[in-house]
């Protein structure tokens, strides 16, 4: 399907179903309310056939360009139907399952995340493993046809709401680094998994610690090959910086619109708004290129670190502008739903230079892989 045709049909479908898709709560809502809303919207989109576009037919999709996924995420974000970060988790995790799971597993599970029946989470980071992902130590040991996993994951977003986890484990020696990692697709209700949610700075229980204590995973749940997990992880990270970021431009545009609706123009305000717009557009122009490269079948790699640096700059610039320009006390004192949304968004924007590889790690990747400056000290 042509992108423009898709957009037009989608927009008119969203118009026709606006009432049933709308959130039942004011402002951003609580995390539980957002989860319910997300599941509802995805279910409606799935039943009408929208969610399946851009995903391969062999895994239960309808086929078509990956651009359609970017357009869908943009449209539902623009209409404030979903929190874009949560909607986009499909874009982070599902391509990996499609690419690395067995065809049967992919076909069985992709429809479940697309339809909103399930959330999935990403079990990568650990207490001692943040930026240095290849140092992870959560261990998987073979046991006849199964694998037994013991260890701990940290910063696992929405683990308590997730039915499955894309999990990285250590299968080689501790010194094997990136050569001794294996990925699994794990059911979160498997005995031995304990999830302890904890609050992020805005107060939502978005993060969790996940403990694995002798968790038995069937071998057919392996993603990729034994000791091939680094490949899985490295193919996932660029996806985290592709369609998701296009969705994010729609979210940031919506917030910038909300901001300029309530500030009065003067020379300083014009400059601050202009700078936020320029930073947002830099991301959008770059992401436009990335969406087209992805759709043309290019393998995404280190160059998506540029997109990540730009998304962080755009998001933080925008919410710094909001804090500066909104009526005094909006972010700091007020308690109405709109003000709470500004406060949460402002606080959340601080994570943009941390999640998905810190600002420093992105610059290290750019220096080494794109500028060919060799290894660092």
């Amino acid at each position, binding site marked *: 399907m042509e*992108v423009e045709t898709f*957009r037009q049909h989608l927009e008119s479908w969203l118009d026709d179903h606006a009432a049933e898709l709308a959130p039942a709560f004011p402002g951003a809502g609580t995390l539980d309310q957002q989860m319910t809303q997300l599941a509802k919207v995805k279910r409606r989109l799935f039943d009408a056939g929208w969610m399946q576009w851009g995903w391969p037919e062999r895994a239960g999709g309808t086929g078509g360009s990956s*651009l359609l996924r*970017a*357009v869908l995420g*943009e449209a539902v974000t623009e209409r404030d139907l979903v929190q874009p970060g949560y909607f986009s988790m499909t874009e982070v995790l599902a391509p990996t399952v499609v690419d690395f799971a067995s065809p049967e597993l992919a076909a069985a599970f992709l429809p479940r995340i697309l339809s909103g029946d399930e959330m999935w989470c990403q079990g990568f980071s650990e207490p001692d493993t943040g930026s240095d992902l290849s140092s992870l130590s959560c261990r998987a040991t073979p046991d006849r046809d199964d694998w037994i996993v013991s260890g701990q994951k940290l910063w696992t977003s929405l683990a308590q709401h997730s039915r499955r986890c894309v999990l990285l484990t250590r299968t080689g020696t501790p010194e094997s680094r990136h050569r001794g990692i294996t990925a699994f697709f794990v059911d979160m209700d498997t005995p031995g998994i304990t999830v302890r949610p904890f609050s992020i700075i805005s107060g939502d229980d978005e993060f969790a610690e996940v403990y694995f204590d002798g968790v038995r995973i069937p071998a057919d749940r392996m993603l990729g090959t034994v000791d091939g997990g680094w490949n899985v992880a490295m193919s996932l990270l660029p996806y985290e910086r592709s369609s998701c970021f*296009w969705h994010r431009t729609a979210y940031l*545009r919506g917030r*910038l*619109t909300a901001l*300029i*609706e309530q*500030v009065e*123009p003067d*020379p300083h*305000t*014009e*400059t*601050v*708004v*202009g*700078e936020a*717009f*320029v930073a*947002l*557009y*830099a*991301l*959008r*122009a*770059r992401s*436009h*290129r990335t*969406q*087209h490269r992805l759709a043309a079948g290019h393998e995404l790699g280190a*160059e998506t670190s*540029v997109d990540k*640096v*730009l998304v962080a700059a755009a998001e933080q610039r925008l919410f710094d502008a909001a804090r500066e320009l909104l009526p005094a006390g909006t972010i700091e004192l007020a308690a109405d739903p709109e003000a709470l949304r500004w406060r949460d968004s402002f606080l959340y924007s601080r994570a943009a230079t941390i999640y998905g590889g810190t600002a*420093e790690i*992105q*610059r*290290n990747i*750019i*220096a*080494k892989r*794109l*500028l*060919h*400056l*060799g*290894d*660092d*000290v």
Partner: protein
Amino acid sequence: MDGSLVDDAERDLLIATVAQGLASRRGGDGYDVLVELGWHDMLAAEPHTATAVVFDALGRANVRSSCLADVIATALGHEPGVAVMLPAYGTAVAPGVRGAAEGRQVIVAGLALASTVGAPTVLVACTDGQAVLVRTTDLRLEAVSGIDPSLGLRVVSGRAEPVGEPAPAPWSAAVDIARVALGHEITGACRTMLDLACDHARGRMQFGRSIASFQAVRHKLAEVLVAVEAAEAALDAAHHTPSPVTAALAKVLAGRAASAAAVHCQQVLAGIGFTREHELHRFLLRTIALDGLFGSARSLTRELGAGLLADRTVPRVIDL
């Protein structure tokens, strides 16, 4: 994506040919070389590709030319090769004023390229949407030494009698294409600044190791690449979705890339980057001078912000 008839291999060949042609003209004028290579035909047949490739190459090589006059003339409905008045520095206001009080005369105030000296006539776009040719000898042309004398700009002023009849001319279209062309030239210069700084960082040894191995150095250079890539993406967008907003944004992001390149590349090059012994200065000074043509990054950012505040909406600008 931009509907170009030129494929990647042809474009690469063109880039290499133009770069080779301009290599010997560093610090000077390369217009004759470009004309020889078929610049006028390219501009007519493939305006986007021609503008992108040639201006990027001019920036990378630090070569001045009259190509900016050509893209403006073409946008105003004239043949390339004619001399063209540019707006006053820091603005995008049409450089001519025609008024009843002046009779047929045109009041001219703005800038011109070096090639205007010696041209019999110069094309002046006027604030009333008309463009006229005037005799160059009727005008005062003063050489600008300024921060980048090798750019060869002239400050032009005077009153002149039109040669022939005025004709309607879409100045705003000329502004857009000029901004995009300048954006390419600035971004090209940034690429060279970044290359120079990366080469220096790899080769310069201190504390027994290459300074490229220090994160403080690497991160500065990464910052420049991000800014340059953003500008190049915006320039792409200005071609596939032409509009006053995409053109202004492309010029702004090019100017921002130039600021990032100036600050970080000069810092990485340190002492030698502060001298005229090293080539960096040519590119750094050129980008500073070009930033003010057709509106600077700073002034256009504010104008864009004012536009959003007036409309109370933020456009999507580009779509997939």
